[in-house]
């Protein structure tokens, strides 16, 4: 008798736990679905504009006006957008003034953003290294004040500098020159570089360089031989982040360049023709402005995240 009751109780308990298990399983499935649903929805929101840009560069006027979405189903892809830039398979070997113009802008963008990032990395890293290692006393200013001076530049809106620079660059004949843009871009990313690199250098123990100093290296020698190799990942992170910001910069370029030093974003922005906008060529140009950084983002995502999240967690 007692064995029967215990068997029944055991069965009931098993049923209860099974029910609880089912319930938690159901809850789990629901929450999983919700999580993946939300993830996929946002992934779609992130990717669709890029997809739209890339596909539009293959659409003719008719397809654009119909709002066609899927290639080969909604519309027949054609090279029209890339042809207008002289970059389609049948035009690539012919001479094309549009392509020359485009390549000139593209190279300007590459050169300007690379040089500005390099300049900012060099002087920014040096400053960050000095501030993280030595005690300075320049008049009333100590390390903390100098650091604050650099970081406070971050809040300076570009518009405050733009008009004075327009006048100053005109006076020194640097209007519409790549050097002028490079200097301004380096200034723009310098606080970010100093922020990232100061954090990076602080994480390297000073004993390493002290040992090197004992071995007879100067402070500059210790920096180049010991510290730079260790802090390279941080430098790459700062460099990539600078590159992204400089490549996409529009405001200064729009005000301070006209023909020679014009960058890709300015060319994109000036595409309105007399008969409205040629969407296919606009899309091809936009793709050319977007794709390089998409590739950088996919390949070097680790560094960008490292650079962005510096200083967030203390």
């Amino acid at each position, binding site marked *: 008798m007692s064995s029967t009751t215990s068997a029944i109780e055991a069965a009931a308990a098993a049923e209860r736990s099974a029910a609880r298990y089912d319930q938690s399983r159901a809850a789990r499935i629901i929450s999983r679905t919700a999580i993946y649903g939300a993830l996929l929805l946002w992934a779609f929101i992130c990717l669709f504009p890029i997809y739209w840009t890339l596909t*539009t560069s293959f659409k003719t006027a008719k397809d654009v006006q119909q709002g066609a979405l899927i290639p080969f189903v909604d519309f027949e892809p054609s090279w029209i957008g890339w042809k207008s830039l002289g970059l389609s398979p049948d035009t690539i070997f012919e001479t094309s003034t549009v392509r020359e113009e485009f390549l000139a802008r593209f190279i300007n963008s590459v050169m300007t953003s690379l040089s500005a990032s390099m300049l900012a990395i060099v002087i920014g890293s040096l400053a960050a290294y*000095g501030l993280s290692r030595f005690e300075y006393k320049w008049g009333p200013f100590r390390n903390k004040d100098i650091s604050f001076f650099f970081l406070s*530049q971050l809040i*300076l809106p570009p518009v405050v500098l733009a008009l004075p620079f327009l006048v100053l660059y005109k006076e020194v004949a640097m209007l519409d020159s790549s050097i002028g843009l490079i200097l301004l871009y380096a200034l723009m990313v310098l606080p970010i570089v100093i922020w990232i690199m100061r954090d990076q250098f602080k994480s390297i123990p000073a004993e390493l360089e002290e040992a090197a100093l004992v071995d007879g290296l100067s402070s500059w020698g210790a920096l180049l031989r010991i510290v730079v190799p260790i802090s390279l990942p941080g430098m790459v992170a700062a460099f990539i982040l600078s590159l992204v910001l400089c490549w*996409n910069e529009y*405001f200064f370029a729009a005000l301070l360049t006209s023909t020679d030093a014009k960058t890709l974003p300015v060319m994109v*922005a000036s595409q309105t023709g007399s008969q409205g906008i040629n969407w296919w060529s*606009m899309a091809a140009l936009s793709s050319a402005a977007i794709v390089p950084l998409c590739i950088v983002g996919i390949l070097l995502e680790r560094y960008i995240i490292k650079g962005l999240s510096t200083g967030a*967690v203390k």
Partner: protein
Amino acid sequence: MQTSAALIGDIPASRKALGRGLIIAASLGLAAVLVWQILFVSGNVEEGFDTWRPVLYAYLAWAVVLGVSQVIIRGEAGQRALFVLPAVLFTISMVIFPTAFGIYIAFTDWNLSSFEGRQFNGLDNLRALFEDSYYWNSLGNMAFYVAMVLVEYAIAFGLALLLNAEIRARRFFRVVFLLPFMLSPVAISWMVGKSLMEYRFGPAANLARFLGWEKPAFFTEPWIAKISIEVMDAWMYIPFMMILLLAGLQAMPRDVSEAARVDGANGWQTFWKITFPLMLPVSVTAIVLRIIFKLKLADIIINVTAGGPGGATDSVTSFIYREYRDRSNVGYGTMLAEFYLVIIIIFMLTLLRFVSRWLRKLD
């Protein structure tokens, strides 16, 4: 670490004198070039340079001599000063000097299209500023855009939580979520603002029609236009806040939230009682940095709406941009910009003080 006093002690007096002599010579040289050019431009001297570029070269030479003489005078301490000196000189000459020059321009009636050249006009620009309803309107718009940072923050926090959950293909989602931050605002303005949101053929308009909005026009009604601009800007910058918050979540000790869960707290309670308070410092950093970026908002507005309809979407920067582009009004535009800078500095200082006091009270 050696003190700088001990380092200076090793330098012979003759070397110090040499260093000081170099600085004095370089400064005199720079001053001479500067004065000569000023005299030439004002018409007191016949010969001179066509542009001010030689003054720039003289300044560069002066900066190099300054660096060299630091090493000569102070030895090792001078070498250390060389680490910070380039960045300091660069920033001062690129920010402080132009801003000071800007203040001078701000008090002139300098219009590049007029033949009369610049003339000091006292407080006229400031008076005009206070009567310029479009400028105050754009400042009001900035208040709206800045306030919307809180909404962006909520979305970014949600996404960071999603990425921090136990999911497959985490790296894929992280890369995809990061992508909008990498894209050129100008390209996005055209391909999203002017194409994707086009009221006739844009997929966004088609979707809105499908959802029951009969005449989806994203940029004709003032408030809808403002929100459309904000949505585009949010789309580009949410990844930025998301990454900061994700870093914060990953640095959080896992056992704290697990202990709470064992104690029977559900996900919602764990979030509000544990996660959110622990994330406050990171959240404040993310929001403050985002506000700093938001105050520079311009590219999208310039390209998509040019401030319209009727200034409803204007940011201060895009307004000043047009003031220069359409009217060549350098003097007045600079006054608007400098005034904006003053407002930003006051606003940021107040915000930071308020935030730090608030955080201290919570501890």
